[in-house]
């Protein structure tokens, strides 16, 4: 076959057209994301680093016991000692805003997909696309639309981090015991009552697993997003690569790993069990 479909040309033309004809809309979206991320960041920055550490330690103790609290304390001490306190706050803010956006969009989408087969049929390939398309491919157009900085970083992160919560919410809704759903209907539930009193509570474990995965994905993507100037720990990773500074690379990488372990265990604990009282 000698004829090549000009898919690349079409997409490039589409992006070009969007950039010139819809600039106002992207600007507004960008401003909202920028403002909210900025708010979260300044909010987190307002909290002293030691207090942030205390919050993690406290939640760690509440959810998982004193051993994990000790681990949190050691991690924060190490992060501060390596000099990554400020970057960690910025990274956390990026993760929070990206996760917040992912969940606000993702959970309702997941519920919709869980209750409606045609919705599921449309949403699934889009999720595959979002998860597997290499991040750099949309990182660059995102930077073109929104300029460099944290906005394209957050958007790229949302694209990458949203699919797990959609998938697992949908799965959770679909896996609710058939007789439990029947019981809901038999006792006179409206579709809304059925959703909030039967389906969502029963899907909670899956929902939390989805939230946990979304946060982990957000963390890994936030590092890559520093390439478009999102800031945070990723900056240090990036500059260590460009300067071939193996020491700095390992230190900043370690900071990311510690943050990841803390976020993972804490969010996971909400889905698995009730706190030990």
């Amino acid at each position, binding site marked *: 076959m000698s004829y090549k479909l000009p898919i690349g040309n079409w997409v490039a033309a589409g992006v070009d057209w969007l950039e010139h004809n819809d600039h106002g809309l992207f600007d507004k979206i960008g401003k909202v994301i920028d403002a909210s991320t900025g708010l979260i960041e300044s909010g987190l920055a307002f909290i002293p680093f030691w207090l942030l550490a205390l919050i993690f330690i406290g939640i760690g103790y509440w959810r998982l016991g004193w051993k994990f609290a000790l681990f949190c304390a050691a991690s924060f001490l190490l992060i501060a000692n390596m000099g990554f306190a400020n970057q960690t706050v910025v990274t956390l803010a990026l993760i929070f805003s990206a996760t917040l956006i992912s969940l606000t969009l993702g959970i309702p989408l997941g519920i919709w997909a869980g209750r409606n087969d045609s919705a599921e049929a449309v949403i699934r390939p889009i999720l595959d696309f979002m998860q597997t398309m290499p991040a750099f491919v949309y990182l660059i157009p995102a930077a073109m639309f929104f300029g460099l900085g944290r906005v394209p970083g957050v958007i790229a992160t949302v694209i990458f981090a949203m699919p797990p919560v959609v998938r697992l919410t949908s799965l959770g809704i679909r896996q609710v015991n058939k007789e439990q759903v029947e*019981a809901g209907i*038999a*006792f*006179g539930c409206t579709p809304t009552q059925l959703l909030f009193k039967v389906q969502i509570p029963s899907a909670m474990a899956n929902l939390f697993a989805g939230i946990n995965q979304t946060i982990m994905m957000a963390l890994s993507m936030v590092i890559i997003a520093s390439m478009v100037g999102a800031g945070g720990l990723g900056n240090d990773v990036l500059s260590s690569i460009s300067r071939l500074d193996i020491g700095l690379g390992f230190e900043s990488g370690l900071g990311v790993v510690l943050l990841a372990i803390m976020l993972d265990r804490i969010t996971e604990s909400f889905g698995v069990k009730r706190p030990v009282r």
Partner: protein
Amino acid sequence: METTSEAKVVVKNLYKVFGNKPDTALQMLYDGKHKDDVLRETGQVVGVLDASFEINQGEIFVLMGLSGSGKSTLIRLLNRLIEPTAGSVIVDGQDVAKMSKENLLNLRRKDMSMVFQSFALLPHRSVIENAAFGLEIAGVELKEREQRAMQVLEQVGLDTFARHMPSELSGGMQQRVGLARALTVNPSLMLMDEAFSALDPLRRTEMQDVLIKLQQEQKRTIVFVSHDLDEALRIGNRICIMEGGRVVQVGTSDEILQRPANDYVKAFFNGVDTNKYLTAKDIAQKEQVTIFERPDDPANGFSAALERMRLYDRVYAFVLDEQQKIVGIVSAESLVHCINQGGKKLRDALLPGDFAIPENTPLNQILHKVVNTPCPLPVVNAYGEYIGAITKTALLRKLCKEKLA
């Protein structure tokens, strides 16, 4: 079928076709085609086929059949968990099949409830929250609904577990919660889909007793799906036998036993003929509590008897004399009654009647007696010595097995 004044539910020419072309399939059925032909030609699965029957006010109506006979589909057509394809389901004069969504919600909330095979409790809610679920859906405020739920939990003996989670309870207790949830809305019609089938035989009997007791306190109309013959005979006022989506016969157990409509019904109820050569001895088992009568015992053996019955979780015990001969049967109730009346001997607590079955009696001759006696029956040899007992379950299981073999 004429409508009598005491009919609670009237089902008329009810059909359910599963698939994307129900109308085509329905037309073929109306034209007299067999449901297997419908499946082959159109790919439509016929679940319920031209079902018509009436359920009387205040009776326990058992839907019986093998798996795949359409009984679970049929019970779900009564509250429209499954949409009927054609026909009508008239409950208290209203056609459930045609009523508006709003009326249907109202009916489900106020006057109909359901108990499920897998219990279907909501795992994130405590026992009392589960029991109050129906009232919560109907918008009854917290205090009132918990009060009403608590009353029902008392009735089923679970009031002390109100704040526990369902996962902390045994299967039998979980189904009591399921029953409480259905009773709390105070429905006049209760649907029970294989409600006790997931329980072990002992718990199943216990739950049947709970149901019968509740039914004595307040008459409700109960539709009970079961594949267990013993259960149907025990609790059903009338039994409806289904085969392949069709209602084959409706009647009391005696009517069906005496005049089975076809071989399928016979297979269910009447394995007897093939079992002439089996005798009482063959299925007698020594699993019952036996008590020896000791005339010289100053304590009369009352408390020991009660304690042993409690230990083995039995309601009846056989009294034997020292030569192993059967003296009679006592129940926990008769013992307690006798103690209260100041009785001196175990003999005073015996249940009236002659229960002993000679060991060489053919099974087909004892079917009636076993089915119609509440307690297990003792089997005795030629010398009158106790050799074992026959329970309903053991007898019916034997009959079913022989039939299948």
